[in-house]
């Protein structure tokens, strides 16, 4: 068959990177190396944030416990949330995007390689600034959304300054990454790779990047205002002298709710790649899955005040934000239905990646259902700021995002390293994780309904509270075992995994059309791109996708 040469000079470029050493990584502007470094950063902070979660569950395992002082507990839960969102979730997804998007669209790098490197190092630097606070007089302790006036003098210490500066720094890095993704997808696509043929992961990273630019800019504005209050004596959020503490909540959640989608859209993209490949069918309803992403992105910017129904905004605003929040269930539901329909009539291969993707479908649906309950204002009044909300967002961000990212690890590890991960360890990882996760978080729904507020360092010995918290803590320990299996699997497979070959899963998108790992410039030559699944067309000349009208 015919192959299109990517760029005339591409073949002349030497395929071996001169020397692989630490400096070649640190000074790298290669999107694959940067992607890997993003992911490693995310894994390091995943371990740190996970240990913080363990401390939280240790303290809450029994009523009236004194493992941690209240001050220490408040710092730990603030650091857990901040770490997992800004230093684990976002770098992880941006890292995967960095590695995969250029490959998926047949490009040889991101549009702005140096900006790309800057983004990475800003995130790393921001993480170091945040953790330096422990040495510099106490970590932030005002929660990951730092409500004013609690986050202002005289109610909080210097930890909040480190928190704000760290997030400003990582935010600049994220915005750089967002701009880079948009320009890359718009201008670097290979011939034939039209927007309508774009792999869904690339689609979602693209849409997500607009959210990143809008939302992180709002957050950085808010943080500058907070620091002006804290350090320069401004009074934006200080009620005593005419500022408004609720203003902070509006600005913060105008960032904060798009942020939730920033953390979940690329994960949706991974699911949209993985389920079809292991069902041996194209994604069901590609245009609807892609368009629903755009719908979610737009809607997500008009729902922020559903975090604030308990503030007492009044009937009209509560109804408006309740209705807009309910609407998000529609495009999200469309996605879940299309993924499920992709399974139907397929030929399912139960790899670890597929198991995590199927686990995602069920766990994320649970998080989605409780999400609709939160959009119904009276239910929000009852359940917000209780353990019910903790359960809800962990179903979305762990059962959703983390399950999808884990599926992504098992799916793309062979491409990145040239070796397969151990499926045997992978299956242990999946089942142990599934049990641990549900045990940890399902009972928290009940605790919330029983009246346990979130962010308490301890609780009274009321009937059932001790038992349910104990179940949750044991579940946390089981989850930790699952992650240990995962890390062992990563390290083991890196050295001893079976050689992967170019396309071990018989997948269809362009990243599988090159070697594993790909050469420095990604492709010498590309297959013809005449449909959404170029490699299917190559493998099935008798029934290529481009013969179908789509």
């Amino acid at each position, binding site marked *: 068959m015919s192959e299109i040469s990517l760029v005339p000079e591409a073949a002349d470029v030497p395929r071996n990177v001169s020397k692989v050493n630490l400096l070649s990584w640190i000074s790298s502007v290669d999107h694959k190396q940067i992607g890997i470094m993003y992911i490693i950063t995310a894994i390091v902070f995943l371990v740190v944030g996970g240990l913080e979660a363990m401390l939280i569950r240790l303290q809450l395992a029994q009523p009236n416990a004194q493992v941690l002082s209240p001050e220490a507990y408040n710092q730990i839960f603030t650091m857990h949330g901040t770490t997992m969102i800004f230093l684990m979730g976002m770098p992880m997804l941006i890292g995967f995007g960095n590695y995969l998007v250029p490959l998926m669209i047949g490009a040889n790098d991101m549009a702005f390689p140096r900006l790309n490197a800057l983004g990475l190092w800003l995130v790393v630097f921001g993480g170091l600034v945040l953790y330096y606070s422990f040495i510099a007089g106490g970590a932030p302790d005002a929660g990951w959304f730092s409500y004013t006036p609690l986050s202002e003098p005289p109610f909080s210490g210097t930890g909040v300054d480190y928190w704000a500066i760290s997030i400003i720094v990582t935010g600049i890095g994220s915005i750089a990454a967002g701009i880079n993704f948009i320009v890359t997808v718009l201008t670097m696509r290979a011939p034939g790779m039209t927007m309508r043929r774009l792999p869904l992961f690339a689609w979602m990273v693209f849409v997500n990047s607009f959210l990143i630019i809008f939302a992180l800019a709002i957050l950085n504005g808010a943080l500058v205002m907070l620091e002006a209050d804290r350090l320069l004596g401004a009074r934006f959020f200080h009620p005593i002298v005419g500022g408004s503490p609720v203003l902070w909540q509006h600005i913060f959640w105008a960032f904060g709710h798009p942020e939730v989608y920033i953390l979940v859209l690329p994960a949706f993209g991974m699911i949209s790649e993985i389920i079809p490949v292991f069902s*041996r069918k194209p994604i069901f*309803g590609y245009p609807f899955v892609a368009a629903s992403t755009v719908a979610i992105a737009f809607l997500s910017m008009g729902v922020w005040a559903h975090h604030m129904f308990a503030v007492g905004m009044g009937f009209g605003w509560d109804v408006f934000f309740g209705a807009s929040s309910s609407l998000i269930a529609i495009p999200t539901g469309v996605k879940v239905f299309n993924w499920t329909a992709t399974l139907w009539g397929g030929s399912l291969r139960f790899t670890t990646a597929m198991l995590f993707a199927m686990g995602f479908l069920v766990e994320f649906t649970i998080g989605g259902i409780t999400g609709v309950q939160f959009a119904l204002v009276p239910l929000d*009044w009852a359940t917000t700021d209780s353990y019910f909300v903790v359960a809800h967002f962990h179903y979305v961000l762990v059962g959703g995002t983390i399950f999808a990212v884990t599926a992504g690890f098992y799916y793309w590890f062979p491409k990145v390293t040239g070796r397969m991960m151990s499926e045997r360890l992978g299956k242990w990882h999946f089942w142990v994780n599934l049990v641990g996760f549900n045990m940890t978080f399902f009972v928290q729904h009940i605790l919330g309904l029983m*009246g346990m507020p979130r962010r308490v360092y301890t609780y009274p010995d009321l009937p059932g509270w001790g038992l349910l918290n104990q179940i949750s803590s044991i579940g946390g320990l089981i989850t930790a075992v699952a992650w240990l299996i995962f890390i062992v699997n990563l390290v083991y497979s890196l050295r001893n995994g079976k050689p992967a070959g170019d396309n071990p899963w018989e997948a269809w998108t362009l990243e599988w059309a090159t070697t594993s790992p790909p050469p420095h410039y990604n492709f010498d030559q590309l297959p013809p791109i005449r449909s959404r699944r170029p490699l299917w067309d190559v493998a099935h000349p008798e029934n290529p996708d481009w013969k179908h009208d789509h």
Partner: protein
Amino acid sequence: MFSPNSPQAYSINNLLLLTTIIGGVILLIIGGVVFYSAFRFRSGLRPGEPPQIFGSRNLEFLWTGIPVIVLIVLFGFAVNTMRQIDPAPGQQPPDVIVTGYQWWWRVEYPQAGVVTANEIHIPVGKQILFQLEGGDVIHDFWVPQLGPKRDTIPGSTNYLWLQANTPDVYLGACSEYCGTQHAWMRIRVIAQPQAEFDQWLQQQRAAATPSGSDAMRGAQVFQQNTCVNCHAIQQTGTNWAGPNLGHLGSRQTIGAGVIENTPDNLAAWITNPQRFKPGVKMPGYQLSPADLHALVAYLESLK
């Protein structure tokens, strides 16, 4: 939320039940298809690749349309519930004014001129209008069995309707993270029959008189130490930095719910409150055993 005891909490519970059932059905459908597919469509059942299906416009309309209808109906129920349980207070004066402080609740009955803390007595079977104020940072007033929660925000006023159908003690807590001792900012609502409540209010309005020589001496200890800087005894006292202690003897707990109110506990609390509630703004007092005994006798005699 479990065992609701007011019209508000019942309405919320019904909505919760309804949405949980509908959500359960959706979960069963998704989970059912996933599990069914796992068995019915596993690989190896037939040779080669399965039929390549790209989508179905009709199905897309179906699973966009049905959720739209379900959501509209549910949201209609929700708006209806909002109107029922959260009507605008209008010109009605509040029955109780609650102000959140780090980490206790000031409770005022404006019509009777009574000020107390952390434990709120209400008559059963009546809608009670709470006015909520924030004293320092944002707190949140939540008694799950009696109705919704609402923030107490410095610089702005919120209102909340609650009711208790039957006499009992209902537990609640601050639900908005508010700093070190957010965990021990608990609420007790003591719902009583009207007559009993009236009697309680009457008793609170009158100044409690210490009885016995110990208690008389304790009153002096109280005045001579810095207790009085933060704690008022008179209902009209303006020293609000700590809870009003005018009728401490009639309360069930100390430290916003952290320990039971017994003479021994009170003595231990005065000596070292940080032991029970680390970070609490009250310092410990190293009084002589005799002074401590007298002070406890005095405070506990204020019924």
